[in-house]
């Protein structure tokens, strides 16, 4: 009897349990499961320590330079920072949004409203402490990179990307992509053979996260280091300058947050215990009959 780690993902491990309506397959290899949960922890803390760093200068610019006298495209600020009841605002590309309590102004260490970009509950550490935020961020960044390299190396060597993430020719036909979008809108869940593989929207999303968003986080992060910039100034030229790199780092982080929200909602739609269980044990139950 092969063990979990020797079975290829997608293979059937046990006989159907409840009559013919349920089948358990082996879906996630041990490397995928471990790197997934390390990512959950590390990316959450990277995000929160990143917001702490952002709070030190809650303004974003395009180009090589940008400071107080230059025009930001995004800014969090207090309209009346010295009053008893300051008003927090988010300014993006000319528009202004009142965001008191969340962005621009929120409860500080004493509990009183004070000027700060993101609120205490979103930053690591909670109190304003750029030095500790940076220490967390760069410590976690090393773990993130090591974890990512293990995932990429093993995924490339054992065929995970080719087998499970690369869309098939049939999946990429406009008609099947359209059908998949309609299925998603109707919350229709796959069953049988179809449920044994990722659908085309899943595959494209995972590929975008793994091969575009996460590497872009690393690259834009590296180019904010003046040491690395002297080694590879062309990388910063490619990104449009240091302040553009900081902006892209922030936008890409937002896109990752958006992905995580959609991903978690989909987990709940698809069956939270089965989905989370499969990412812990590797075993995933599929329905062999289709329900409308």
């Amino acid at each position, binding site marked *: 009897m092969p063990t979990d780690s020797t079975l290829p993902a997608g293979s059937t491990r046990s006989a159907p349990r409840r009559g013919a309506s349920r089948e358990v397959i082996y879906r996630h290899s041990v490397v995928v499961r471990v790197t997934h949960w390390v990512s959950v922890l590390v990316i959450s803390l990277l995000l929160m320590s990143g917001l702490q760093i952002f709070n030190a*200068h809650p303004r974003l610019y395009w180009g090589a330079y940008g400071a*107080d006298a230059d025009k930001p495209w995004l800014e969090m600020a207090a309209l009346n920072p010295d009053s008893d009841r300051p008003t927090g605002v988010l300014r993006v590309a000319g528009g202004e949004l009142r965001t008191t309590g969340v962005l621009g102004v929120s409860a500080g260490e004493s509990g009183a409203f004070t000027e700060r970009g993101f609120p205490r509950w979103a930053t690591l*550490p*909670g109190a304003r402490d750029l030095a500790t935020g940076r*220490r967390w961020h760069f410590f976690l960044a090393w773990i993130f990179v090591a974890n990512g390299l293990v995932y990429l190396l093993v995924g490339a060597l054992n065929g995970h990307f080719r087998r499970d993430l690369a869309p098939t020719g049939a999946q990429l036909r406009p008609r099947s992509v359209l059908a998949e979008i309609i299925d998603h809108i109707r919350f229709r869940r796959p069953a049988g053979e179809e449920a044994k593989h990722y659908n085309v929207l899943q595959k494209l999303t995972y590929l975008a996260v793994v091969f575009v968003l996460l590497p872009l986080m690393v690259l834009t992060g590296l180019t904010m280091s*003046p040491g690395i910039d002297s080694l590879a100034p062309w990388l910063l030229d490619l990104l449009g300058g*240091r302040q553009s790199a900081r902006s892209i780092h922030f936008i890409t982080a937002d896109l990752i947050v958006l992905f995580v929200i959609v991903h978690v909602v989909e987990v709940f739609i698809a069956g939270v215990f089965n989905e989370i269980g499969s990412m812990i044990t590797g075993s995933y139950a599929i329905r062999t009959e289709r329900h409308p």
Partner: protein
Amino acid sequence: MIAIQPSRRRLLAAGAASLAGLALAGCDRLSASPSFQQFIGSGEDLTFDAQRFLLAGQPLAREFPASMISPVFKSNGTSMPGSDEYQALADKGFAAWRLIVEGLVARPSSFSLDDLHRMPARTQITRHDCVEGWSAIGRWSGVPLGYLLRLVGISPRARYVVFRCADDLENSLDGSGLYYESIDLFDAFHPQTILAHSMNGRPLPIPNGAPLRLRVERQLGYKHAKYVMRIQLVDRMDRLQGGKGGYWEDRGYEWYAGI
């Protein structure tokens, strides 16, 4: 198929929320522990080693065309040192100011601003990246630090160059808040490491560090000490002020600011 009951869903949500709350409180408590700070600080040691390996060829920081100079070069930290001595020097255009070079050197010396202007100068248009996240581009002219160090002859025991400054961010009475910074010889002899007496073609303005500031282009802004009064060559930093090699370093920031 497992259907989730509403009560179960609520329980899950409450469980997740309280777990997240616990984790947050835990992270804050960890952040407050010195030994944990030291543990996560090991990431910085790795960064230092990695960058020293990668930058062994001493590459130059990007230099920009004059068209890219920031319209306003932000002044951060102190914009006017408060001491009477500094005021008196500033009132006379720093004519009486002298840069003292001492410590582990063969010939302890002092130089006037005119002396420094007569030395070979390097001019570079570079980007200043603050640890807070903003950047500004300026044109700097000044004496390469390596030239000055060769002039005074450094002892083989010297490992760090310490910059003692006139600004006291805390207006401390005992001088414990006086700004200082340090770099090692690897960065001190980099061709772009200069003691700048000019910015954007004019004498260095007071808000930007007059009469002399350090430019150490491959590190963040807080390393670029302003209002430099004295340069000391030392073999260790633990006996200086807070012992971490700089004003911000004594307040939790990393000594190596190449990231």
